[in-house]
């Protein structure tokens, strides 16, 4: 019987490199590929066109592992599904989470199709997560767990996914890289930034892609929750819920951004209590298990690496899900994800539309 082929998405980083190496050890017919997702052009001199350094590292690793390596140009689809959406979300006063859409659309849909074209039974990545018995589970390394970004993938894809480093912690992954002689990438620093945002300066991407007079980048009022104007900002897209930096001083308690109201171009600020939410509404819900009923108890996470909170599903229809939290959470941010867990199983998730706040019935953060 011939070996089963697996197409590995290789970023040039340590996790996907070790993933490929482990699959070779396990006897798979491994093919490596790096996705070309965007092009900085000549604007960013130390990051040449097409994230060339990453491509080169991935190619060197494949050369060393003795497997073929390809570069797949997914730039136009990624631009549409991820980058355009990123800009639109900020323009609507929300805080997008592009890695979720990249996993949903780019890696586990478009990249998977490239796998189909070469008869790859499997597709693998270097994510810290696990697929066990057709279910997605959190990675063994709680600090590295990436399931927060994976809830949106098509459930059927789970049957074709291998996540080889999900059983390791980061130290073990680095040790494996050294043990397998992958010195080129073994000590590469983690990338925490959004890949297509050079130097973390997301506002620059917005400035490049939105018209100069876009409301999201134009001056507007900073107001308190009771409507008092206390300052001016330089574009609400430069603010996110929970932010403290760049706000006017002179208040008795620390102030935070508690909402963005794009229709008034307003950035709303308030104290810590006003930042709390005891429930939320989410849309574009996706399930990786059979849909749970209203009334089901779940654990939820509303931002990457935040603590899990117990909650109950109180409403669920085709459009939306509404969750009541047992304990309030600070800075529930429209545009970010809510992910539902049961123990370490990922049940599904959605994009946060609005937080519900104590003592109020209406979702006040709706865009």
């Amino acid at each position, binding site marked *: 019987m011939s070996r089963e082929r697996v197409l590995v998405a290789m970023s040039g980083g340590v996790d996907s490199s070790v993933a490929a190496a482990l699959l070779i050890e396990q006897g798979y017919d491994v093919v490596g590929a790096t996705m070309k997702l965007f092009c900085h052009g000549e604007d960013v001199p130390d990051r040449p*066109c*097409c994230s060339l350094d990453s491509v080169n590292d991935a190619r060197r690793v494949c050369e060393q592992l003795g497997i073929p390596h390809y570069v797949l*140009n997914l730039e136009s689809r990624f631009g549409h599904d991820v980058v355009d959406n990123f800009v639109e979300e900020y323009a609507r006063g929300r805080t997008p989470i592009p890695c979720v859409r990249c996993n949903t659309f780019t890696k586990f849909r478009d990249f998977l199709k490239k796998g189909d*074209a*070469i*008869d790859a039974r499997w597709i693998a990545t270097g994510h810290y997560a696990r697929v066990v018995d057709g279910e997605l589970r959190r990675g063994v390394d709680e600090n590295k767990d990436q399931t927060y970004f994976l809830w949106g993938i098509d459930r059927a894809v789970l049957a074709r996914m291998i996540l080889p480093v999900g059983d390791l912690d980061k130290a073990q992954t680095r040790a494996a890289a050294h043990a397998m002689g992958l010195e080129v990438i073994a000590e590469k620093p983690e990338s925490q930034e959004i890949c297509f945002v050079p130097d973390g300066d997301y506002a620059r991407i917005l400035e490049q892609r939105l018209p100069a007079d876009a409301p999201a980048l134009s001056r507007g009022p900073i107001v308190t929750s009771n409507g008092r104007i206390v300052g001016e900002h330089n574009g609400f897209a430069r603010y996110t819920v929970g932010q403290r930096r760049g706000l006017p001083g002179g208040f008795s308690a620390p102030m935070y951004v508690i909402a963005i109201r794009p229709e008034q171009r307003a950035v709303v600020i308030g104290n810590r209590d006003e930042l709390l939410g005891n429930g939320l509404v989410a849309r574009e819900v996706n399930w990786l298990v059979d849909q749970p009923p209203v009334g089901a108890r779940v654990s939820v996470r509303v931002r990457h690496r935040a603590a899990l909170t117990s909650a109950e599903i109180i409403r669920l229809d085709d459009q939306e899900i509404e969750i009541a939290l047992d304990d309030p959470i600070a800075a529930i941010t429209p545009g970010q994800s809510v992910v539902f867990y049961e123990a370490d199983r990922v049940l599904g998730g959605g994009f946060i539309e609005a937080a519900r706040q104590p003592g109020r019935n209406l979702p006040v953060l709706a865009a």
Partner: protein
Amino acid sequence: MPADPVYLDHAATTPVREEVFEAMKPFYGPRFGNPSSTHRWGREARAALDEARERVGRCLGARPDEICFTSGGTEADNLAILGSWRALKKQGRRAVVATPIEHKAILGAVHQAALEGAEERFLAMTPDGVIDRGSFDALVDDQVAVVSTMWVNNEIGTVQPVPELAAIAKERGAMVHTDAVQAFGKVKIDARSQKFDFLTISGHKFGAPKGIGALFIRRGTHLEPLMHGGQQDRGRRPGTENVAAAVGLARAAELTIAECEAHCERLRKLRDRLQAGILAKVPDAIVHGRNAERAPHILNISVPGTDSESLLMALDLRGIAASGGSACQSGSTSPSHVLSAIGVRPDLASAAVRMSLGALTTDRCIDRVIEVFPVLVAKARQLTAAE
């Protein structure tokens, strides 16, 4: 890797021929001298270099002093375009004319000339990849410093009527360059009877190593050198000459010319069979440049509903090497500028697969591709249909 690999990318590069390798060896050994030295070692190297120049000249119908060895096609193209533009702009000729289907070496050099003040003019192309004559007549006027038209297109294989165009351009006082990198050994080149001023060849396209090429520079033509230094090659190309590679180029050129007719005949039959074989199984496949005169070694084909990136990967994993559009720095493919320039729809341009035949191509190779390619196409279309 499957047991029976099929290399169909001769337009990208070819293996160094055994005879060529043998001819080069002494210059990596006992005849290592610097041709500029006056002693015995120098003379031995100089003799080989002079002889190589004569032999390459003979292959092109040129005199030895008209051959300038370069590091390859890109350098020769740059030297011709920028060297002649810089020499002629002083005389008031401000325009540079090229086709939009040139190799990037020409397009890049023309762009540089534009940065230096030249007016870029691009010729209109027919949908079959041939220069539109009306456009040529209109654009090549008395303002033109240099015209560059590639003889055989590297992606689709179409042949331009270079001798005829060169004669017209010369009457209008322009300098004429032709990139003959894919044409050498495939069309009749004779610098004595044909009117071009500059002609580029590249060794690794016909059995010489990478890193050696030549520019034919018609005697009496003024050209600014790109590099500055010693007096090698009359100051046109300073730097110690790559003697071994020049000898290899000469040997490969001679072999190519000697075998030209038989080789072309063989390749044409194989290519036509490949084309017919694919069309028989994939009747709606589109052969680019199909109504034009084409060099015998190139077949460029687009199948609607497929993408070349996936096809090339799938072919490679079955041991078949072909190529797509122009390769980006990262190695990813982007739709070909050549196909875009001749009006091919973007979805078809990004489906294009170029197969280029040569010394390694046998009947078995063709059989294999005729068998495998349609299967991969059917699979790709199934996946597209499922979307």
